[in-house]
C-alpha cells in the first residue's frame, strides 16, 4: 500500500478549517433560503428579491465546488471518497433533491417538472447521487429560460436520471468536456469541469455485475435545451 496523506497535523488543521467553512456556507445558504421562503408577495416585487435569489445561487455554487473539491482532492490528484450504497425508493431520492433546490427555483421563478416511478427501488450511494443531481439542477439554472425537468426511469436494466432545461443548450466547449469526461479523460480546465469530473467519479464508483455507471451531456433534450444524464447500473 502506498501512502501520501502527508502529516497528520496538517491534515487535522485542514479538516477543522474545512469544517468551519462548511458551517459558514451552510448558515449563509440556510439564512438566504429562510429569507426568500418567508418573503411576502409584495416583498417579492422588490428589486432586492432577485438579487437575493442570485446570492443563493452563487452560495450553492460555492458550496458544491468546495464539497466536490474536498471529496476529490483530499489527496492531491487521487480521487477518493467513502462509498456506501444502499437501497433507496426513487420517491425518497426525488423528495430530497427537490427539497435542496425548491427555494432557489421558486425565487428564480423556474418551474421544476419531475417524472419518476416513485415505487421503484434502486441501490446507490444516496448522498453522492443527491449531490450530483442537485448540482446538475443548479447548473441548469444558469442555462434555462424558465423550466427544468428531472426524469428518472429504468431503461434496459439501468437507472437513468436526467436533468434537462429549456435554454439555449450547452456551449460546444461544455459538450466536448462532457464527452471527454465520459470517456474517462481527466478534464479539469475550468470549474464546470470539476462538477462533471465529480459526477463521472460518482458514476464510476457504482458497479453491478462488472457494469459501471456513466454520465453524458447532450443538447435538444425533452425541453429543447441542454440535458445532463447520469446512468447507474
Amino acid at each position, binding site marked *: *500500500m502506498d*501512502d501520501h*496523506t502527508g502529516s*497528520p497535523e496538517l491534515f487535522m488543521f485542514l479538516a*477543522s478549517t*474545512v*469544517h468551519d467553512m*462548511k*458551517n459558514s*456556507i*451552510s*448558515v449563509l*445558504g*440556510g*439564512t438566504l*433560503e*429562510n429569507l426568500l421562503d418567508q418573503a411576502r408577495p409584495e416583498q417579492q416585487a422588490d428589486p432586492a428579491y432577485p438579487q437575493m435569489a442570485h446570492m443563493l445561487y452563487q452560495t450553492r455554487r460555492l*458550496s458544491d465546488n468546495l*464539497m466536490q473539491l*474536498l*471529496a476529490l482532492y483530499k489527496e492531491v490528484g487521487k480521487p*477518493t*471518497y*467513502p*462509498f*456506501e*450504497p*444502499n*437501497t*433507496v*425508493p426513487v*420517491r*425518497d431520492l*426525488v*423528495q*430530497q433533491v*427537490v*427539497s*435542496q433546490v*425548491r427555494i432557489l*427555483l*421558486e425565487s428564480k*421563478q423556474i*418551474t*421544476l*417538472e*419531475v*417524472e*419518476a*416511478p*416513485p*415505487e421503484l*427501488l434502486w*441501490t446507490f450511494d444516496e*448522498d453522492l447521487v443527491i449531490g450530483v443531481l442537485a448540482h446538475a439542477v443548479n447548473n441548469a439554472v444558469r442555462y434555462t429560460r424558465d423550466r*427544468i425537468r428531472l426524469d428518472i*426511469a429504468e431503461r434496459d436494466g439501468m437507472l437513468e436520471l436526467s436533468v434537462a432545461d429549456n435554454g439555449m443548450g450547452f456551449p460546444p466547449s461544455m459538450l466536448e468536456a462532457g464527452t471527454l469526461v465520459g470517456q474517462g479523460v481527466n478534464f479539469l480546465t475550468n470549474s464546470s469541469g470539476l462538477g462533471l469530473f465529480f459526477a463521472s467519479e460518482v458514476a464510476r464508483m457504482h*458497479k*453491478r*455485475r462488472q457494469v459501471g455507471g456513466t454520465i453524458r451531456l447532450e443538447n435538444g433534450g425533452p425541453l429543447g435545451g441542454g440535458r445532463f444524464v447520469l446512468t447507474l447500473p
Partner: protein
Amino acid sequence: MTTTYITASGAPTAEIADVDWGEKRYLIVDDFVGIRQLLRESLRNIGARHIDQASSGGEAMTLLLRTHYDVVLCDFNLGEGKNGQQVLEEARVRNLMIPSSVWLMVSAEKSVESVMGAAEHQPDAYIIKPITEGVLLTRLNRVWHKKQVFREIDAAYIEKDYLRAAKLCDAQVARHKVHEIDLMRMKATLLLKAGEPDKARTVYERLLEEREYNWARTGLGKIRLANGDHEAARQMFQGVIGENRYYIDAYDQLASALGLLGRHEDACEVLAKAAKLSPNSVQRQRSLGNTALRIGNIPQAEHAFRKCIAIGEYSINRSVDAYLGMARVCGQKGDIKEALRLLATAQRDFPGELVALRSKITEGLVYHESGDFRRARKSGDELEAMLEKERKRPQTATCIEMAILLFAVGVKDAPVELLCHVIRNNHDNPVLLDEVQKIFDKARMGEEGIALIAEARREAAEMMNKGVLLWKTGKLVEAVEWMREARERLPDNMRILFNSAQMLINHMQLHGYDEALMIEANGVLMHVDELAAGQQRFAQLVEQLQMLIPGRIQSDEEGEGAGATAAPAEEAGEPAA
C-alpha cells in the same frame, strides 16, 4: 407506474406519514450557533415544538441525563472535548436512549467514521450538511420505519437468541424489500455469532454476486480467518482496501490476519495507517500500542498509548490497558518512576481485583525488563501472596502472562498452579496445551510439565465423563448437581459449561419450566459467551432455552437443532497422556 409532478415549486414533499414528528422531543448538538439556529428552524418547519440545544458534548450529556429524547441531531465534530461518536457511545452504554429513539449524526462531509463499520455503536443514520427539511424528514421517516422492521430482531439479538433473530430477518425481507440489504447484512452477522460461518458465507456470496459491498467482502475474509486460512483472508482484506481505502474495518481485520501469519511488523504498519485515518478509537490505538510494544517499536507504542489515554478521557470506552501499556513503555525507556505513577493511576481509576493483579504483573515486568531483578522478584512474591488470598482466577491470557512473569522472576509454585488451572479449563485445546508445555520447557521444567499437563487433563475429563454417565443412565437430577460441582472446580471449562447448560435445559424439557434453573442455565451460557463468543453450540442452546419460556411464540418453521435434544458431548475415550 410513473408519476408526474408539475408545480411551481416542483414539489413532491415527504409525507409526515404515520409518525407525528411534531410531538417528539428533540436535542440538537452543535458547537456552531448558526447551525443550531438553522436546524431548529428546520425542525420547527416540520412541526417540532420541544427542542433543546447543546453546544458541546458535555452539555449534551447533561441534557441526555435529564430527558429521554426521541430524536438527537448531533454533529460529529464538536471541537474540544467529546466528539459526536463519543457522546453517542456514552448515551447508549449508560442507557440514556430508549430503543425507539433516533440518533442522526450530522457531519460537514462524508466522514470515514460513517462508513468504517467498525464502531460498535452506530448512529441510526448520517446526514451531510447542508441539511434541508426534505432530507431530514425523509431520513427520519425511513429510520423510523427501519426501527419497526428491526424491532423484534433487535430484541432477539439482545437475548442472544441469534438463530431466531436470523429467521426473523428472512421473514422481514419478504415484506420489506427496501430493507433487504440491511436485513441480509444483519442475518449474516447473526449467523456468524451463532457459529454458522458456512451459512453466513452463502448470504455474503449471494449479495456479492449483485454488487461489491465492502462489508460483505470483509465478512467473507473474517470467515476465512476464523477457518485458519490466514493468507486467503489477508488477500481479501487487502483487496477491500484497494477498492476503498476508507473502509477501516478491513484494516483492523488485515492487521489480525498479519498477526496470525506472524507478520507483526506489517500488522503494526497497517494499524498505524488505520489509526491515522480514524484516530479516535480507543480499541484501535490499544491494538496499535500492544502490537508496537510486541515488535519493540517503543516510540510508536508510546504515541498510541498516549493517544489512547487522551481519547479515553472523553470516552466511555476508556481502557486500563492503555495505562498498563504506557507503564511498559516507560519501563523500557528506563523511566521507572513514571511507570509506577501510571500503575498507581490505573489502580485508582479502575478499581477491582483484576486491575490490582494486572498492575502487579506489569510492575514485575517493568522491573524485570529494566534489569532490577531484586525488585522484580519482590513483585513476584507479592503477586504470589495475592493469588493465595483470592481463589478466583482471571481469564486464560492473564493467567499465562502471570505464569511467564513468575517463572522469569524465580517463583515456582504459583505459576505451576496457574498453568494447571489453565489446562484444566482448556483440556481439549491442543494449541494452548502446546503453548503451556513451551512455558514449562523454558522454565526448565519440561519433564514435570508433561506430567502436570496430563494430570490436569485427566482430572477435567473425569469430571465431565462422570456427569455424562449420570445423565445417560437417567439420573438427571444427580447429573445436574454433579455438573454444578464441576463448574465450581473448573469455572472456565467450555465443555463442562456447555454440558451443564444442556443438562439444565434437558431437565426443564422433561420436567417443565423452572425459573431458578432457567436463570442458572442462562448464567452459564452468558459466561460461555464471555469466554469465547460465536460458538455454534452456544447459539443452539440459547435457542432451546428461549423456547422453554412460557408464552413464547414459536416460529412457524421448525429450525434444525431447535427443539431437538442434543446429547451432551462425551469425552472420546481416555485423554491421551
